[in-house]
């Protein structure tokens, strides 16, 4: 009994300490903005948080609270409830999924807190704004670029290995379908593999590619649905001594990954899937300042090629 009450005392003391701390912080800051991030275990999410933090650094009147849901819906709902209890000035959320998080987004809006949904969407219009990339645009851009590399419309030649992301995920098909559409009617182009999923992982793509290299003597291009998979395929080809004969294309364009590999000449190109971190905060501050903001912002893509890769690395302090 005694031990338990001691524990309670510590808990109470630490709670008190945190509340006082946040309280003093709130007095000093004009806006407290909560950001509920679904997970930080992927490089793209890490970049997302970095972008958001960097943007927050630019504004002296912003205090940013980041909650990591560890890729779990229940934890993310709890994080959101926490923000609502703390009565933050605005909430940014990058939800795990639509179904489990629509309710809590509505709840936050009902509590009078403006909500900005980033990346994946939720199934309601009770929020201020959605900001995200468009995977279909990436599929289109990658398809056009690939078609050009293989000889151009009507006379393209080559065998393509496509390494799928997660087969249960919308983004996979949005990155795949427009890419295939670009090669519609191209007699000279063959897609060698039938929906082989590397689950977005470098190691699985490596194994898929090493088997494909045994299976097909003639591979001209690899399209990985993200950069780590394209790079994994590159490594497999390199280990088999065939990397020089193959063009590797990736998606995401993170400075530490895809851009670096393009700059090294390992990938031919990657297509930026921008994080909505910085833009999300800018839009939230606009809204708080009383400006009108659109209900939806779609962020475009950008081809990262050997021509502009170095410049991006320099901008990010990596070169």
């Amino acid at each position, binding site marked *: 009994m005694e031990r338990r009450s001691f524990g309670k005392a510590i808990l109470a003391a630490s709670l008190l300490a945190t509340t006082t701390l946040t309280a003093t912080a709130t007095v000093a800051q004009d806006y407290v903005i909560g950001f509920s991030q679904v997970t*930080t*275990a*992927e*490089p793209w*999410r*890490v970049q997302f*948080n*970095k972008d958001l933090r960097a943007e927050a650094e630019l504004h002296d009147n912003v205090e940013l609270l980041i909650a990591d849901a560890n890729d779990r819906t229940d934890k993310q709902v709890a994080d959101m409830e926490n923000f609502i209890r703390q009565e933050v000035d605005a909430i940014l959320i990058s939800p795990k999924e639509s179904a489990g998080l629509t309710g809590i987004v509505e709840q936050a809006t009902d509590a009078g807190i403006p909500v900005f949904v980033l990346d994946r969407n939720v199934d309601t219009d009770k929020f201020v704004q959605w900001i995200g990339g468009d995977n279909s645009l990436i599929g289109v851009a990658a398809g056009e670029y690939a078609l050009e590399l293989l000889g151009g419309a009507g006379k393209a030649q080559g065998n393509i290995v496509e390494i*799928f992301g997660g*087969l249960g995920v919308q983004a996979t098909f949005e990155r795949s379908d427009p890419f295939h559409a670009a090669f519609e009617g191209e007699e000279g182009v063959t897609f*060698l*593999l*039938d*929906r*082989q*999923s590397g689950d977005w992982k*470098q*190691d699985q793509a*490596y*194994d*898929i590619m*090493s*088997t*494909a290299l*045994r*299976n097909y*003597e003639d591979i001209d291009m690899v399209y990985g649905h993200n950069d*780590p998979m394209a790079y*994994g395929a590159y*490594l497999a080809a390199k*280990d088999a001594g065939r990397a020089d004969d193959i063009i590797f294309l990736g998606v995401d364009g993170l400075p*530490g*990954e895809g851009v670096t590999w393009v700059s090294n000449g390992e990938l031919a190109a990657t297509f930026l899937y921008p994080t909505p971190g910085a833009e999300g905060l800018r839009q939230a501050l606009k809204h708080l300042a009383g400006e009108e903001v659109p209900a939806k912002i779609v962020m475009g893509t950008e081809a990262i090629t050997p021509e502009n890769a170095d410049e991006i690395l320099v901008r990010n302090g990596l070169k």
Partner: protein
Amino acid sequence: MNKMSITNASETENMKSSSLAGVLLKVLARTKLYWGLIVLLAFGAMTSPMTSKGNNIFLSIGNLTDVLRQVSVTGIVAVGMTMVIFIAGIDLSVGSLMALGTVICAMLLTQSGWTAASTFAIPATGVVIAFCAFSLIFFILKHKGKGSQEYAPSQATKITSIGIAAAIGALVMIWLAGQMAPKFGVLAVLIAVPCVGAIMGAMNGAIIVYGRLQPFIVTLAMMVGALGLARVVAGQDTAVHPVYTGSNATESFEVLRTLLWGFLPVPGVIFLGVLLFFFMLTRLTTFGSYLLAIGGNEEAARLAGIDVGRIKIATYSIAGALATLAGVLYVAQFRQGKPDAGIGLELDAIAAVVIGGTSLMGGRGAILGTLVGVLIFGFLSNVLQLNNIDSNTQLILKGIIIVAAVLLQEGRIDGTFAWFKHKLSKQ
């Protein structure tokens, strides 16, 4: 030692009734471990696409050694898992420990000086090496004392051997500290990283033994805890540590992914070496028979004078060490260390062990069976991929084949045969 002895009784009866069928049946039952694999290999060879020169791709040396390399990480983890399952335990933490191994290995290779990884790995290695040295010295002393169970060393010998062991541990730590500048070499990571796993595994074992807790829950806790630890060690802002040998890491690490004589992948060779070592350990030493004895009947083993607690701790420690060793090979093959590398690995390892005929109830099984289990998994993926089966269908087929393989393993070949004979005699 394994289930052959149990099935033997019914086989002898069959022998009496019809000698030819009986002999055939006996051979079939004896070797049934290998039939699943052989059928799979035959199927793979038959369905394999051909190269333009008309060679069978599946049977090409390159493809076969590819599979050996692909299974090496799961395989090494599964060897440790087999021994844990021998003692009727389970280790759910191996996936997380493997991932922790990749993170520590990648960080030691790419960052110099005191980092989270080296602060953790160097003392851990010192402790493990000192402990191993101490055990070895004692083992030798004991055998000098004519191997008598009651050998009790004098206080002075005890203190001297502890002193020597501590000195060896300290020397290793000094050597490793020297490796921090500029960066760890291949030998240093091969020693330090498994030691980290050994410590974590020993923690599993100690909590199970002294806390008298179920291995399931203890190793589940370690699985969660080690994942968190791996993320903290990696750094909250880093999801992946890339390893580029020759630029951010030493060239010597390349050794772990070269092909010996142009065709044997080093990770595969290390897997086979580990397998052979533990095969001999479990078959030829008393330690091996103790494992099965504990798994068969822990109370009886205790009454027979076996130090059950210590052997359990040693077993979990070995499983942990092998898991992190697999982490080093992961880094070598995929050039990255990441906290999420091992998610789901523990289940693959358990499945391979069970397909290999080791009983989840403990007390019977064989390390060689695990090799078969691991290869069945590896060749299955390979055959499906060569035939270009899409990933979702692959999952369905894998599920079916796991059940089929276990049925064959546990299966009543003789029972089915008897049923056939019964049907035939009726007609």
